[in-house]
């Protein structure tokens, strides 16, 4: 009897010590405009979905808060010396999933293969992969079709699942929309990340608790939050009100017009910074004649002078000041500053000069200007419709009369994506998840075919340029490759196929005792958060 009592006393003692060791209970309530679509890590390649999943799951390699690649479940990675088309990943040892299963090479191989399944939305990032094989318990090889120096950049949102867990719950493939059953992984999760899923009510509330066994805990990752409550609040005014009334602690998607007011509020703190996303206009440069213009028999956009004149007519500083209330970074290139290939020279926005623009337009044979229809989304980017309205006015100053059609993103993007495109002048925004210029080139400039150019709505087809772009993907000499990138940008900047406007800027608002810097990919990772003072 007394032995039992002793054991009980010891257990109680251990329990109290344990609670004393782990940091005090601290809840962070987090709100943003939309919910993650699913917890299945491979079913949706979408920002808010990845953001939430980053707290539960981990990829092999991830980006830290400055955008640099850092080890996650892989400790090191390299291209094999004897075969340039094979990447070798060394895996972290001694890691356990939330359910206690050990993480090993089988899980990594399984997860990458799952991400390449037909019903996966991540497969677009892994098209270069030929096979994934286990070498031993802590090593895997990823073989690509020809050398791919950037494979690692594509893996930062490809999360690793537990093979046994997925098999036991019949979730070895992402949701198929023809299947009548809900995939188990949609609302359940078992990762290795810093937080463990407690409950999930889609569109209402997701509760996570700290993973006390998290491998990465240390000076970089204080992991002070013991409970994370994630709530989507769609209405801007309500979201801001919830922060003001103290019902939430941290808010993403702060409306531009509220930033100043929140900054001036006691006990609140606002952080701002550029997002990995650039807003720009594109136009049909490839057609013989345009449908929506009033010029017969030729395409004004095919003339470089017209494009340059338009670029010169846009007053980016005015857009920044009036439309964006200062919350943007005007630019001269369609590449965010984090991307390999970006230089301050490329980024320099052209000085607006209406008279010279008019002269150039006259020189190109359009002294009276022309008419054109502009397609614009009104619910996708920050103040997207306002940007379009401003540009309509600016182009009007040089005689280009623009008929503005702005509509919801579900109607706008199909115009750009259809083959052939159904727009001749359009606004889009573009982020670069690989942080490398090649991504921009192959999606936005390369001739449209089965593999490339899915966002090239310019009808641009330049075989010489295509060849240069394709050669980038297999060039493993970094210095040589960067030289090629610079050369391509030089040509593209002169051609002015797109009209860059600005880099979108993000703002987060939070309680004064918190400091969450803006994440370039808009994926704040809250394991880094520590509470100040209090």
């Amino acid at each position, binding site marked *: 009897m007394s032995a039992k009592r002793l054991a009980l006393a010891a257990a109680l003692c251990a329990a109290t010590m344990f609670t004393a060791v782990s940091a005090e209970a601290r809840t962070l309530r987090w709100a943003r405009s939309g919910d993650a*679509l699913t917890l299945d890590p491979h079913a949706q390649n979408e920002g808010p979905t990845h953001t939430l999943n980053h707290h539960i799951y981990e990829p092999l390699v991830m980006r830290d808060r400055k955008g640099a690649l850092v080890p996650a479940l892989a400790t090191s990675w390299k291209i094999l010396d004897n075969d340039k088309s094979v990447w070798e990943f060394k895996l972290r040892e001694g890691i356990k999933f939330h359910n206690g299963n050990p993480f090993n090479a089988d899980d990594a191989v399984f997860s990458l293969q799952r991400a390449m399944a037909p019903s996966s939305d991540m497969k677009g990032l892994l098209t270069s992969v030929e096979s994934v094989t286990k070498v031993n318990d802590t090593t895997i090889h990823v073989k690509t079709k020809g050398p791919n120096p950037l494979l690692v950049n594509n893996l930062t949102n490809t999360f690793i699942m537990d093979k046994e867990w997925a098999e036991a719950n019949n979730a070895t493939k992402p949701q198929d929309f023809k299947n009548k059953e809900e995939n188990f992984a949609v609302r359940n999760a078992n990762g290795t990340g810093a937080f463990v899923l407690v409950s999930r009510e889609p569109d209402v509330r997701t509760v996570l608790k700290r993973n006390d066994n998290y491998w990465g805990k240390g000076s970089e990752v204080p992991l002070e939050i013991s409970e994370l409550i994630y709530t989507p609040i769609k209405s801007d005014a309500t979201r801001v009100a919830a922060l003001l009334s103290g019902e939430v602690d941290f808010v993403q998607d702060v409306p531009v017009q509220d930033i100043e007011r929140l900054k001036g509020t006691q006990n609140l703190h606002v952080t701002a910074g550029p997002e990995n996303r650039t807003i720009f206009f594109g136009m049909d440069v490839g057609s013989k004649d345009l449908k929506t213009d009033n010029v017969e028999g030729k395409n004004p956009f095919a003339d470089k002078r017209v494009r340059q004149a338009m670029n010169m007519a846009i007053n980016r500083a005015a857009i920044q000041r009036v439309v964006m209330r200062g919350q943007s970074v005007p630019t001269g290139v369609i590449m965010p500053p984090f991307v390999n290939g970006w230089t301050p020279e490329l980024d320099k926005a052209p000085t607006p000069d209406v008279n010279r623009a008019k002269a150039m337009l006259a020189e190109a044979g359009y002294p009276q200007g022309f008419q054109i229809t502009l397609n614009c989304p009104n619910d996708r980017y920050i103040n997207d419709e306002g940007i379009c309205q401003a540009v309509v006015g600016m182009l009007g100053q040089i005689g280009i009369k623009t008929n503005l059609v702005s509509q919801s993103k579900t109607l706008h993007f199909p115009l750009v994506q259809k083959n052939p495109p159904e727009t001749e002048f359009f606004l889009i925004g573009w982020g670069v998840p690989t942080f490398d210029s090649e991504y921009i080139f192959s999606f936005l400039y390369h001739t449209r075919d089965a593999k490339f150019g899915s966002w090239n709505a310019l009808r641009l087809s330049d075989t010489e340029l295509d060849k240069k772009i394709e050669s980038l993907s297999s060039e493993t000499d970094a210095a040589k490759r960067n030289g090629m990138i610079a050369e391509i940008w030089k040509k593209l900047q002169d051609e002015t196929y797109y009209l860059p406007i600005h880099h979108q800027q993000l703002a987060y608002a939070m309680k004064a005792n918190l400091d969450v810097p803006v994440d370039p990919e808009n994926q704040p990772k809250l394991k880094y958060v520590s509470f100040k003072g209090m």
Partner: protein
Amino acid sequence: MFAYILRSLLQGAVVLIAVAFIAFSMFRFVGDPVANMVGQEASMADREELTKHLGLDQPFPIQFLRFLGKAAQGDFGISYRQGRPVAAVMAERLPATVELAVLSAIFATVVGVALGVYAAIRRHGLVANAVMTLSLVGVSLPTFLIGIGLIYVFAVELRWLPSFGRGETVRLGGWTTGLLTKSGLQSLILPVLTLGFFQLTLIMRLVRSEMLEVMRSDFIRFARARGIPNRVIEFRHALRNTMIPVVTIAGLQLGSVIAFAIVTETVFQWPGLGALFVNAVQFADVPVMAAYLVFVAFVFVVVNLATDLAYLALDPRLRAAPTAAR
């Protein structure tokens, strides 16, 4: 009576199919769901494949017939946005909307009738006139403004009530309720006021004018002549006779409160069907939109039927000569 109900139900089925048809034919104007369903890295081929996989490349009549066939078996498909069965998602959202709508309807009816009667009896009183003037504000102010205004006063400034969500809920079988917890009840107050305000003013004005009408009629005058006390005349004879149009309007309003709580639910991040529908429209989530619109039609059919039955209870003349009169 039974035949009457049966006929109403048959008419209801026709209404449902017609609504489904109209809704379906409008979905093409909402946009292309595929653009939202794949990431920006998807190739042209991937997009085409998904379009084909979802059957979105099929001509409209075939898509519609396929939807009808499956819906008849209770299968509304998988939500494109959430990757979950539509029926399950809607069942999960229904309790929030029903609780909000029913409480708003009760609030609007009880307070509306009471104020309406008061305004009719004390027609020239100061309070009655003030209430009437205020009701004009209720009719003309948009719902979202009322909602935001209430949030700023009661959540941000006074911090008495929560600004969003349903609070803590209790699960009773397949139903979740916020009526059993303190935070759940607190969370209900502002949305109920917001959603019920318009109906309240409507019912109040209706009751007042109907009541004034009835009070002028002969049988009230005779009742007075017989020396029946005022209270009895007002509440037993006059009020009862004003109720027929009031029940019609209140019934129809209950339908629209359930169906179109969209604005209120969005403002308060209320996890009901209206908020679900708004998200579905923005994503072009066709299965959810279709199921929601059919559901709304169903609610109206049922509410209309219930309203008709309520007439029978209120108006003895209808009971005396049931279907023969028609």
